[in-house]
């Protein structure tokens, strides 16, 4: 069933620590961004921007999610920070 909803409020997640895509999550690139599917909890989530997909894929190269966010243009940073927090809270990201 496509499109399970992620809690829209940005949850409290420590982005000062390392995060990476959960090993049970697969990304499928799409024109709008990507589909992310978690084989463990069966969540399907729409990543609605190619930049967010790039950011998520880049996480494993950084010591913290905040360090990865430094590459995002400042006006967009808050939105992407909230998006990462929601992904982490829904189990799509794994504390590295």
């Amino acid at each position, binding site marked *: *069933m496509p499109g399970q909803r992620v809690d829209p409020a940005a949850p409290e997640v420590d982005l000062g620590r390392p995060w990476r895509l959960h090993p049970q999550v697969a990304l499928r690139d799409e024109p*709008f961004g990507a*589909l992310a599917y978690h084989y463990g909890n069966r969540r399907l989530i729409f*990543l*609605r921007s190619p930049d967010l997909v790039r950011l998520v894929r880049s996480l494993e190269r950084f010591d913290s999610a905040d360090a990865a966010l430094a590459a995002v243009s400042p006006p967009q940073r808050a939105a992407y920070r909230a998006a990462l927090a929601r992904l982490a809270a829904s189990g799509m990201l794994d504390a590295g």
Partner: protein
Amino acid sequence: MPARAPGSALRDELARGLDAPICLTWELTYACNLACIHCLSSSGRRDPAELSTAEAMALVDELASMQVFYVNVGGGEPLLRPDFFELLEYAVSHQVGVKFSTNGTRLDRAKAARLAAMDYVDVQVSLDGATAEVNDAVRGQGSYRAARRAMEHLADAGFEGFKLSVVVTRHNVSQLDQLEALAGQYGAQLRLTRLRPSGRGAASWAELHPSRSQQHDLYRWLRDRPWVLTGDSFFHLSALGEPLEGLNLCGAGRVVCLVDPVGDVYACPFVIHEQFRAGNVRGPGGFTGVWRSSALFRSLREPTSGGACTSCGSYDACRGGCMAAKFFTGLPLDGPDPECVHGHGEAGLSDRDRPAPAADHSVRVPVRLSARA
């Protein structure tokens, strides 16, 4: 905002279709040991032309290369296929997760244990009433007891979070609380889906589908319980106010489709009819060719007109409802759903010619010949 529930811009993009389905329904066999009066696929007898094990595996290979994350496997009764577990293991080992629906009759202790030991497999046990009386009137005598036994086996085997899957009817809509409690009793999750006038449901829909006031109750019940799964089934109810969970979009031929047991590809599980058959996986381009190039699917991805619904203030919420429900009740595809919550669909229902469902595999009832006088 990224990573949120889809808004209307994304919904428009999905309506134009993706290069691969998000998920698809795959009916493995037309064979079934039950004869539910609302069966979408008119199942009963196995079709001699059903996909072989090798052909089914080739389809899994294609789905894996298209990165289809999971398939909804149904039938017929999937457990009646002798190679069921072989196909299941093949699919999950190729990162194609399986959610399969079963009537539970063949789900014994050993099979429950085998399923519980597998990753990436979800089980949906079908039950259409909280009591034997309500369920068996639709699914046949003894089917309630069989489904309860299967759920017991799954729970005993430690299969957590399997689904209790219910088609909402006029007769069970008052039992939703009981059904939720029943699911909880087994550590299962409740899943509700919409009754469609498809397959044998074409003949039973008029007397089984929930009344308009029951639909309003159902909407409120679902809105208060976002954790109840619906497979995006009830998006026509979103016309009542705040949208329900999910895409709220007809995904037929755009983000979902059906592969039937003989490999025919239809726009969705509810339109097994020639008019909605896009091709066959045995064709030269395989499933991929059908999905990406069939004339039918390309046309379903064209912008649609709201037709008679355009002037309705709810059109953006429900998008005119379910194509299959309209088709099999003889309503125009660009007009209101037969269960339109504002009642716009009902007027056209009585005097329409209704298309006959195709691919009827119902068990033929032997005709009793009366002795001639």
